[in-house]
């Protein structure tokens, strides 16, 4: 340590390293905004997108130049990265805002009583009214279908998933548990359309070729939903501290009662949250239901007989086969999309509420 003198390392900057002032930062932001507004307009293309792009680009580059001049290379890099990451975040928020805004704007026009209460079994009078621009046709049958199909999927996936999670956490040792864990991972990666094909292939054997039923749709969704339930429930069960289990055993409580009375109640908030999110994930699935449950024009409450429309499939067909005039179908598609987004949003809120309300006091 005697060679402090031939130190080839960094400059010992004085502590008063040159720093960009708040005013300079503000000026850069303001100039960027100004450039963003003026350049596209001067070039005759004053659209929002270009304004944002030019503003963002000028902000990042002006930040760099400003920092290089007023500070040093390292500070400049640091600031540019901060600016870039911020811009990236804003950029990613744009589609979310745009989708939400578009769905609401386009969806409300037909979000009416006829839509909520009617089906696509259109009488000649309905068709005539539709031609003249009046509201006709609804998605009641699709909502019923979604309810039944999702209900069936949940009825299969929740017990199966929960018990599997219990097995993996409480009982599973050795090769079987490892195999199940791996297979749950594989199942998570099954493309939704493949699940639909599977359910179709399975029920073709039972109901004959070309059959499309609600139960087939339910089975298809349950294939997608089960691994999500297993994963989230497993994670929650593993969070339950072992001391609780041991305390229960020490009282002479058998293992299965310990699981039912101590472990699961402790983890119940997380488990229910996970289930809600799993439902939210499958309720918007279109492809598997397109394959397995098909499209019907009216309400069908029997999942074992005949096609059953769900909201996403309804949305799809109303958009790609809108009928005459096209606006009628497209408007119904947007209304159904709004309905779907509202359902998913409600499930998300429910999941949050469940997580907060049911959380055992004293844990975490």
């Amino acid at each position: 340590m005697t060679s402090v003198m031939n130190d080839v390392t960094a400059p010992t900057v004085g502590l008063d390293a040159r720093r960009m002032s708040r005013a300079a930062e503000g000026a850069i932001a303001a100039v960027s905004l100004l450039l963003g507004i003026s350049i596209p307009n001067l070039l005759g293309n004053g659209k929002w997108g270009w304004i944002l792009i030019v503003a963002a680009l000028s902000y990042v580059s002006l930040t760099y130049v400003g920092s290089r001049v007023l500070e040093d290379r390292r500070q400049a890099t640091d600031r540019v990265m901060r600016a870039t990451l911020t811009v990236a975040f804003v950029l990613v928020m744009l589609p979310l805002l745009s989708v939400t805004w578009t769905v609401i704007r386009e969806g409300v026009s037909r979000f009416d009583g006829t839509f909520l209460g009617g089906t696509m079994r259109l009488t000649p009078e309905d068709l005539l009214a539709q031609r003249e621009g009046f509201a006709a046709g609804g998605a009641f049958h699709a909502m019923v279908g979604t309810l039944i199909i999702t209900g069936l999927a949940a009825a299969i996936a929740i017990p199966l998933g929960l018990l599997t999670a219990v097995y993996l956490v409480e009982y599973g040792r050795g090769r079987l548990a490892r195999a199940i864990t791996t297979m749950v991972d594989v199942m998570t990666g099954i493309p939704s359309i493949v699940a639909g094909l599977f359910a179709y292939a399975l029920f073709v054997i039972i109901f004959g070729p070309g059959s499309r039923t609600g139960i087939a749709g339910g089975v298809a969704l349950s294939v997608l939903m089960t691994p999500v339930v297993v994963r989230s429930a497993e994670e929650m069960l593993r969070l339950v501290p072992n001391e609780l289990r041991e305390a229960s055993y020490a009282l002479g409580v058998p293992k299965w009662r310990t699981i039912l009375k101590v472990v699961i109640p402790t983890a119940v908030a997380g488990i229910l949250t996970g289930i809600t999110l799993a439902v939210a994930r499958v309720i918007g699935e279109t492809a598997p239901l397109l394959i397995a449950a098909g499209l019907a024009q009216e309400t069908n409450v029997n999942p074992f007989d005949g096609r059953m429309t769900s909201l996403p499939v309804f949305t799809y067909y109303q958009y790609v086969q809108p009928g005459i005039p096209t606006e009628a179908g497209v408007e119904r598609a947007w209304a159904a999309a709004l309905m779907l987004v509202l359902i998913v949003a409600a499930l998300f809120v429910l999941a949050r509420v469940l997580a907060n309300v049911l959380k055992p006091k004293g844990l975490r």
Partner: protein
Amino acid sequence: MTLLSPQSASVTAQTASRGRLGDRVFSGLSRAAGINILIILAGVAAFLVVEGRAGIFGDTEEMSGSDNFLQYVGPLVFGTVYASFLALLIAAPLGVAVALFISHYAPKRVSQTLGYLVDLLAAIPSVVFGIWGITVLAPILSGNLYPWLNENLDFLPFFSGTISTSGRSMLTAGIVLAVMILPVITAISREVFLQTPRLHEEASLALGATKWEMIRQAVLPYGRSGVISGCMLGLGRALGETMAVAIILSPSDGYFWSVLTNQNSNTIASNVALKFPEAYGLDVNRLIATGLVLFGITFLVNALARRVANAGFSGADG
């Protein structure tokens, strides 16, 4: 022991035996559920193989178009991989950037909410993304970005050709797919970034690193395997994504490199969704067989993702 009254002894025995029976039933049930998972998965593969076999080896004369199966599935595999690759190309850097923004740059108070917003993006049903993509995004892109790319970069094969005026091109599909898989990449990256040991971050800061230097020195190396596996999972999601592509893409038969035109190789999933409702006879089997191919591809990609994740985390712990 002799003081124990006969009654209480029998009670104990009863409880014990009931406990044992309950345990056996309960462990049996949960075990059966676990085994069921294996059966379902085997069933998925088996039924696809059984129903798909005829589509691969059956008489091509009875199918629409007389290509053999490889000729049929080839362009679809190409389209699937191409669209997903485009999506990943866009989503990976953005997803990691957003994850870093949320984990290390956003104020702590709001960072959780911001993460929640990104998660919401994953919750929007794909059919909604599809109709949004074609009515909102496609016109914007085909009216602004695509002409520019086409004029200035048409020496690249990707941007050559006649651009699609409706915007129903591969690039539009890729961008919408990117939006859909970005939350996956962000969620996983964010998690590993947040797990970076505070000690390593502080070690870096104490050496006089700026925030970005700290991220490069401590956060990114630590999170690398997580980011890679997140990208692979996102890729797996993109490969299987159906509706958005089915609605947006204007498909043709064959291999097409250009991403701006009306002629695009379709993806497997979108092809199934478009053709299945009207298909009959051996065409159905052939579509199921393409589903099997898709299953195989996603399986490989996801398996790779898991390997990367497992290898990485154990290395980082050591």
